[in-house]
């Protein structure tokens, strides 16, 4: 069965500093990996995904993530954090080929960027 672990409930970072939000996954085949962001009282917004190809994927709002197969990780990164990046971040996995399989989400990591 697929599973996703986000080991940190909360990440605090100063504005302008680099940020990392960690994610590890467990699947029996090749994963499709996703990051979503949820702002307060809002729905989930897609940030980026890894399907195949380059291990470093770039997404919305300057975010990027690196797929590391040996470490089964897909950490989310940004070189310079903004206060407006403060939100709840979810990592998710689907089994590839997907065959209409749903997303399995991590429990979320709350990012707080301090001015």
């Amino acid at each position, binding site marked *: 069965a697929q599973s996703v672990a986000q080991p940190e409930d909360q990440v605090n970072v100063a504005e302008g500093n680099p940020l990392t939000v960690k994610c590890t996954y467990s699947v029996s085949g090749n994963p*499709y990996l*996703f990051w*979503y962001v*949820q702002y307060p009282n*809002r*729905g*989930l*917004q*897609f940030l980026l*995904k890894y*399907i*195949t190809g380059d291990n470093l994927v770039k997404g919305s709002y300057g975010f990027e993530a690196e797929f590391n197969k040996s470490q089964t990780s897909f950490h989310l990164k940004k070189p310079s954090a903004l206060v407006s990046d403060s939100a*709840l971040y*979810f990592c998710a996995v*689907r089994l590839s080929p*997907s*065959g*209409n*399989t*749903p*997303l*399995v*989400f991590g*429990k*979320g990591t709350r990012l707080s960027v301090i001015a």
Partner: protein
Amino acid sequence: DTAVSQTPKYLVTQMGNDKSIKCEQNLGHDTMYWYKQDSKKFLKIMFSYNNKELIINETVPNRFSPKSPDKAHLNLHINSLELGDSAVYFCASSQEGQSQETQYFGPGTRLLVL
């Protein structure tokens, strides 16, 4: 234009009532989903429909009944509401195959059962 829309946005009701939540997507996707987000923000799949056919039903009580009149709509009807049904319900859609796979989410429906 909103890609995935849900109505209502907020729903406050008494225990024992029956209520429905509607979802519509204008992305031309063939697969739609319902997810539940509990008070701890944990997200879990409830149902998945592909071209109006039920694909996934994840051990959800049979008080919850999804209905897909066409592939652009997936409604969720809940009978005999219970306190534990209080949550945020998200609809999502995707187009399977073609290396797309991304699910796009609606804004959520916040259900409070009193």
